[in-house]
């Protein structure tokens, strides 16, 4: 892989890692399979692009994040107050967001940001200019990692983690799980939207379809991270998710380099996640057949 492609996949990996942390929060910490992600990612990107054009790139990130958290709140409320299944609640909000995102983007399906001032312009004229696209997302990611880790170690963070483990127990200990789910989903989708907002300014455009399959990419990052870098402690898990996201981008970059058409990307992502999710069962079945064949071998031999 060329150095440029390598650097590019690291940069993208860092931006996607923010989204992967959000997916980790909903899927793993809250045990809530949240499909809002595909929509809230674009919501972040839409606010980011529109505010960029109006000369407020930083506010683009902030408002994108806030809008994402609002989307997460709606999914959480649909589930906790109206008792709609998590998957369906996420799908409904994702669908609704499609229209909202188009409205935010002024009914255009694509907003180019070429020659616009973005957050990456802020290092222009300094010695770090050449590394702006690496350093700015990295700074944001590290700050978020520390904040998220500290948050999950607070009293509220404990309740939130326990909600995903055992909601019944959390209620039996006097905590309203509707509230912990609401806070968790708001946080999760604000991370996702921030990632989308950053990506928009990084790649200099927002497209209405850029969120398709985002939840699968997030999940792939989480699983790759967990399998390769381990889950023994909370900090390790969070770092594993980040490394998983970067590794995922590298795998994609290598595949593209080897001549895979970019249009096959989603198929590869879906296959990768399906395989990773099925791994424990495949291992179990393989073991079973090995035993079965061995047993039949003995029978035939005797």
């Amino acid at each position, binding site marked *: 892989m060329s150095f440029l492609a390598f650097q590019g996949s690291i940069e993208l990996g860092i931006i996607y890692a923010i989204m992967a942390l959000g997916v980790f929060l909903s899927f793993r910490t809250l045990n809530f399979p949240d499909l809002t992600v595909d929509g809230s990612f674009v919501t972040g990107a839409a606010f980011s692009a529109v505010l960029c054009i109006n000369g407020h790139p930083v506010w683009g990130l902030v408002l994108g994040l806030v809008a994402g958290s609002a989307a997460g709140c709606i999914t959480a409320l649909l589930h906790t107050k109206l008792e709609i299944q998590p998957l369906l609640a996420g799908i409904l909000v994702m669908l609704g967001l499609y229209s909202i995102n188009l409205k935010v983007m002024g009914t255009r399906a694509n907003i180019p940001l070429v020659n616009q001032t973005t957050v990456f312009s802020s290092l222009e004229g300094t010695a770090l200019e050449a590394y702006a696209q690496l350093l700015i997302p990295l700074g944001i990611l590290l700050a978020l990692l520390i904040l998220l880790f500290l948050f999950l170690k*607070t009293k509220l963070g*404990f309740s939130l983690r326990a909600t995903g483990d055992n909601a*019944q127990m959390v209620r*039996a200990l006097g*905590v309203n799980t509707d509230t912990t789910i609401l806070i968790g989903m708001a946080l999760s989708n604000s991370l996702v939207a921030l990632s989308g907002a950053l990506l928009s300014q990084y790649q200099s455009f927002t497209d209405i379809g850029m969120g398709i399959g985002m939840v699968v990419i997030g999940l792939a990052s989480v699983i790759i991270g967990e399998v390769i870098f381990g889950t023994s402690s909370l900090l390790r898990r969070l770092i594993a998710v980040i490394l998983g996201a970067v590794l995922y981008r590298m795998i994609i970059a290598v595949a593209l380099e080897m001549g895979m058409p970019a249009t096959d990307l989603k198929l590869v992502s879906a296959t990768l996640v399906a395989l990773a999710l099925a791994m424990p069962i495949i291992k179990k079945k393989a073991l079973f057949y090995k035993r079965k064949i061995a047993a039949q071998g003995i029978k035939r031999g005797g």
Partner: protein
Amino acid sequence: MVIIEGLSKVFDHGTTNEKLALDNINLSLGTGEFVTVIGGNGAGKSTLLNCIAGVFEIDTGRIMLGNKDMTYWPEYKRSRHIGRVFQDPLQGTAFDMTIEENLAIAYAKGKPQGLRRGINKADLQKFRERLSLLDLGLEDRMKQKVGTLSGGQRQALTLLMATMVEPQLLLLDEHTAALDPGMAKKVISLTGEMVEQYHLCTLMVTHNMKAALEYGSRTIMMHEGRIIMDITGRERETMTVELLIKQFGSRSGTELDNDRLLLS
């Protein structure tokens, strides 16, 4: 301390499966009273506890704890005054969190959640002291995940968590039924010690007839959603397991059919 008036609960209302699970239950417990509850399958023992805890909404009646009318309170709000241990050891703890983190959640009961540190030094000291009461060596394993503990250890931990912030009422729903006999004995004697030490008002559903008579100061027997026997004092002291089964037969008109029932 606890007053239950005219409590009824119907499941699957208006369907062919409609079942009257609790039929006009009246029950009051004094301060520090330890009541054991026995009965056959489907007698309504667990339903009664779940109605008190707020897991199920009730159809008619009133539930008072102290001077508070809790009838329309949500489950989490009632939990601030009620400690609970479930039959399934998996239900009372968060398996993917450490022992100390589980205890911290229990210790924060009723206090504002907030963004304060989950565990501080003083908390750790307190957790260590409380865990050593269990005599299971858990005080030296506080950083381990609860998922690595056995069912009995988890149940003992749940009991500790349920009483970490002293509740006004302790609800125990066959909390030793899923344990091996040795561990069941350990957990039930721990229960006895804790209830006595804190003078806790307790409702304990049990499948063990002997334990039902041995622990506590009062025993009630349920059948088809009603309380068919309520013994205390002298009458209870002279009661034996054999007599209890006989009494059940004459009062309910059927045989006791709890398939988990332990007679010894």
